[in-house]
């Protein structure tokens, strides 16, 4: 398992990122964690629908995007808010989605990030298609698709990986192995010792990295991105991390895992090791921490505000995006719907 930054903040080899960028990414992880914890809090207040926390996976998500170009496609899941945000998906839309508003799935025009995939497995083939189209268009863009350890059991994972390798598609398969698929521990999900070794089935490079290590994740993704852009095809990256929280706010992890297991991972916090790394290089101070936490709080509160003050979708709108323009039967049903609303 590749590691560049040890849990205690020690560096192996040369730093892959300069201090300034490292600070930016550290800050991004702080903002992401703020969003994540805030979402859980809001859900408890009934202001958001069920939420899937990603605490513990910040490095895997922020580090991955650091290895991409701004116009590359990102196709992630319900647990990838940080990943999507890092590639330009606005927090307010991520919140909006969780309030149960369709507009949360509609990123700004120039943002090449798909709405979060709610089904497990089905989105990876889309990433392959996106990257394939970019290849044919010669845009130089690639795609990264993120998924969990559980998703690797779905047939679509297999079909996506095989297509990508057969056609040399510039698609990065980023598996955030967070130890669980809801209640099923990784060891019961598959018998392969690593997820990375599944790449062998496709004659594709497979890399296992410490998913709580910002540098290692960045490096692996950058390497895979360079290969993809060069036309040398896909890479499977297993980022070994841990889902610190419940599967979703509706889940009770005590039913299937022990407190001490969680504790063990607390020491491997993805933010803490970067903090130590920075502070040892005088690039982190208490004051700065307070500043960025305050900024994060403001940024997230603003986003919540935007999401919650969005006027509801106008009545009938739910029928307006089934097709580019509604056929007669949907127009008629829309009229029925408006009739009923009165």
């Amino acid at each position, binding site marked *: 398992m590749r590691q560049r930054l040890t849990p205690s903040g020690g560096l192996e080899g040369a730093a892959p990122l300069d201090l300034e960028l490292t600070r930016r990414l550290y800050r991004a992880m702080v903002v992401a964690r703020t969003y994540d914890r805030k979402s859980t809090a809001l859900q408890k207040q009934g202001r958001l629908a069920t939420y899937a926390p990603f605490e513990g996976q910040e490095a895997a998500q922020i580090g991955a995007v650091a290895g991409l170009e701004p116009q590359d496609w990102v196709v992630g899941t319900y647990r990838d808010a940080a990943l999507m945000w890092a590639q330009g998906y606005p927090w307010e839309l991520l919140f909006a*989605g969780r309030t149960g508003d*369709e507009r*949360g799935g509609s990123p700004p025009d120039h943002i090449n990030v798909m709405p979060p995939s709610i089904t497990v497995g089905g989105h990876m083939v889309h990433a392959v298609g996106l990257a394939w189209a970019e290849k044919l268009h010669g845009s130089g863009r690639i795609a990264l698709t993120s998924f969990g350890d559980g998703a690797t059991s779905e047939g679509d994972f297999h079909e996506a990986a095989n297509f990508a390798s057969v056609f040399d598609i510039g698609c990065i398969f980023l598996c955030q192995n967070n130890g669980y698929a809801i*209640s099923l521990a990784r060891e019961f999900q598959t018998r392969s010792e690593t997820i990375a070794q599944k790449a062998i089935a496709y004659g594709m490079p497979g890399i296992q990295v410490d998913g709580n290590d910002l540098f290692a994740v960045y490096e692996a993704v950058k390497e895979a991105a360079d290969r993809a852009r060069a036309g040398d095809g896909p890479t499977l990256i297993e980022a070994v991390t841990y889902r610190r929280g419940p599967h979703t706010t509706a889940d009770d992890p005590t039913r299937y895992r022990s407190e001490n297991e969680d504790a063990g991972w607390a020491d491997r916090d993805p933010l803490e090791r970067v903090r130590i790394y920075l502070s040892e290089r005088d690039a982190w101070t208490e004051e700065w921490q307070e500043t960025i936490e305050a900024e994060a709080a403001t940024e997230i509160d603003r986003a919540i505000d935007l999401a919650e003050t969005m006027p509801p979708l106008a009545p009938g709108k*739910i029928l307006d995006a089934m097709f580019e323009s509604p056929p007669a039967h949907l127009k008629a049903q829309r009229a029925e719907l408006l009739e009923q609303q009165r």
Partner: protein
Amino acid sequence: MTVLTMAKALNDALDVALAKEADVILLGEDIGRTGGVFRITDGLRESHGAERVVDTPVAESAIVGVALGMAVAGMRPVAELQFMGFSYPAFDQVISHVGRIRNRSQHRFSAPMVIRMPYGGGIGAAEHHSESAEAIYAHTPGVKVVIPSTPYDAKGLLLAAIADPDPVIFCEPIRLYRSVKEEVPEGWYEVPIGEARTERHGTDITLVAWGAMMTETRAAASQLEEEGASVEVIDLRSLVPFDADTVVASVEKTGRLVVVHEAPRTAGFGAEVAATVAERCLYSLVAPVRRVTGWDSVFPLKRSEAQYLPGVERIVAAARQTLES
């Protein structure tokens, strides 16, 4: 007799089946250690063992296909798919194999198995968690399709499904899991598959529904009765076999039909009910048939859910129009 929610009644049915029949085995995602996302299998792993209440990897096609193999080899698998919206990856197994193995082998092999799936909306869930695709399964040859609307029926129909020599798609209305309680007998009892239940007898109009929409349909019926109409309410309970005789007999009496379902309208099962009436008792009809259904759209997210779900008002309004003509 004990008073149970549908969730508990289903849990009880599975418990009773596991205890009675050694070949019954439960397969699904998170059904063991957590007892399922809706806790329908709560406690069963503890009481019947991890070998009989199996937590599977995340792979619906395998869950159903493996269950089929088990059934062919003499077991009675009950597969849980976490939501109907996640049954589609297994659709090929259902339509290509589960519904066909008996015919393919001319009775040499068969698939006595149940595929349970929570379905329907109304709980403000994320996309894919509010599906009503029962018509798709009803159009799939070789499988039965069952949808209870009460705790009593839920237990009895599930036990009948487990005892059935052929595969049964068992749709569980999420909204009803814990919203109603009723007396449910202990032990094994069966509610026959393929028999609709006339819940309320009346002479002016027939309301046909199933699953979660029974709640709104019952409320609409009460309101209409207050307005002086005599309303007959039929809970279909099984879509396959479809108890056409009960519906036809009712419409021959009332001359009026409103079908209610949550699924999209076009090619929904309401069309089958309406078509059957137009074929078999056209001359009894004194008013056009009406369908009160979901729209031909994706089930919307929380904030717009109410715009999609057929409510009491829509049913009452459709019935009034029908009664007036």
